[in-house]
């Protein structure tokens, strides 16, 4: 009993001495910082590890698991989108509706012109630094960068869908002669096309200024497309052509999304 007590006293003394020593030399030890490897080197390590990841037993189950993770993450991303994104898009609906209702602009041309703008604006959100803020940092402990990026793209795409359906339905209520199917086709085609281009773009370039360039290019193109004679030509094109173009763009988007998910983003920049 006495021996045990002595041992306990000795342990307590050592604990105090350790604490004292730590305090004594702590400020000096703090100077021993570490120069960490760069992102490229970390990616090299991750790539070296990939062959050792256990082989998936069921491919479809893994795909489903990945999609579930992205959808879950997308739900959280809604709350992290900046207020500027929502305000800008609110103004966009107002501009599209007032363009058609007050200025008597062609509804099909208007829908075609505005369809990709939400996506282009959303790219700013997608390209924001992934380490901006604790919330994003916390997420990076649960999801990898590809998952975060694809989930943001899902939010942007989903929001575009809602916003354009709203515009289409609102215009449909005011103009009985409007063909809803035609409106949807005029929206879906540029939207899928721009979505495919966006996925290609975000996997290769991460500069925000390039988005401004993209926006200017699209506004110039849409300015040209909104000319009456061009609209007439576009409207005379067979619906099959729009459907085919949309299908091709959709397949490209899906292919690119899977590619980003599997290979990563910086990987492509470096190779």
């Amino acid at each position, binding site marked *: 009993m006495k021996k045990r007590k002595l041992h306990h006293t000795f342990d307590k003394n050592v604990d105090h001495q350790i604490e004292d020593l*730590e305090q004594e030399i702590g400020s*000096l*030890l703090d100077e*021993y910082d570490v120069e*960490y490897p760069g992102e490229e080197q970390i990616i090299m390590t991750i790539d070296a*590890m990939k062959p050792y990841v256990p082989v998936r*037993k069921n491919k479809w189950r893994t795909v489903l698991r990945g999609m579930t993770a992205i959808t879950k993450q997308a739900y959280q991303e809604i709350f992290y989108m900046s207020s500027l994104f929502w305000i800008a898009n609110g103004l966009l609906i107002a501009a599209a509706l007032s363009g058609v209702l007050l200025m008597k602009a062609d509804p099909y041309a208007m829908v075609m012109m505005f369809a990709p703008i939400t996506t282009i604006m959303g790219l700013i959100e997608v390209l924001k630094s992934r380490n901006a803020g604790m919330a994003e940092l916390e997420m990076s402990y649960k999801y*990898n960068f590809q998952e975060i990026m694809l989930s943001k793209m899902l939010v942007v795409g989903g929001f575009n869908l809602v916003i354009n359906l709203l515009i289409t339905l609102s215009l449909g209520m005011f103009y009985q002669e409007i063909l809803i199917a035609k409106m949807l086709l005029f929206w879906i085609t540029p939207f899928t096309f721009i979505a495919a281009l966006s996925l290609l773009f975000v996997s290769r370039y991460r500069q925000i200024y390039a988005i401004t360039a993209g926006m200017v290019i699209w506004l110039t193109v849409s300015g040209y497309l909104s000319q009456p004679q061009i609209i007439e030509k576009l409207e005379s094109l067979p619906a099959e052509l729009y459907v085919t173009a949309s299908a091709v763009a959709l397949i490209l988007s899906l292919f690119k999304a899977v590619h980003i*998910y599997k290979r990563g983003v910086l990987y492509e920049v470096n190779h």
Partner: protein
Amino acid sequence: MPEDEQLVKEILAGSQAAMEVLTRKYYKQIFAYVYRKVGNKETAYDLTQEIFIKVIQRIQSYSNKGKFSSWLYTIAVNHCRDYWRSSDFKQTSKLAELNEALVCDKSHVPYIFERKEIREQVKTAVSTLPEHQREAVLLKYFHHMKIKEIADVTETNVSTVKSRLHQGLGKLAKLLKRGVEDEEEKTTPYF
């Protein structure tokens, strides 16, 4: 953290994304430990990579027995011990000694480099500690581990860890205080 166990489950199901998340989460911590243990950036990078490959190769043997981070650190500690005994280490340490000698030759260090000089002193002092003492000091001071956790990671008992810490920190205090006094003598102007 419960997320770690979830990520391990996903890795076992074949998710490379989960592997990437888990690696990124612990990469810097493990690199820092290895770097301070071996004192060389290139070697630390190679060893860190080998550690993570070992982790993924043995991931099936991790069965939520304890914290994932403790399991990871155990692998890191053992891998560094293996390296310490290898011939690779003996070759690299000779080169490091040479570099160290070159650094020490620069006796008149300007004031702005004083902090760098202190860092080098700490680095040298840490490298003079016996392996087990160094492990205990690094895990306690730089990785904020509790003594019980250090004992688990280094596969020893609490009293041994305390003794190693006590001796290790004591040696560092002596070495570093002497170093600082030498530095002060160097920078004190003569009248």
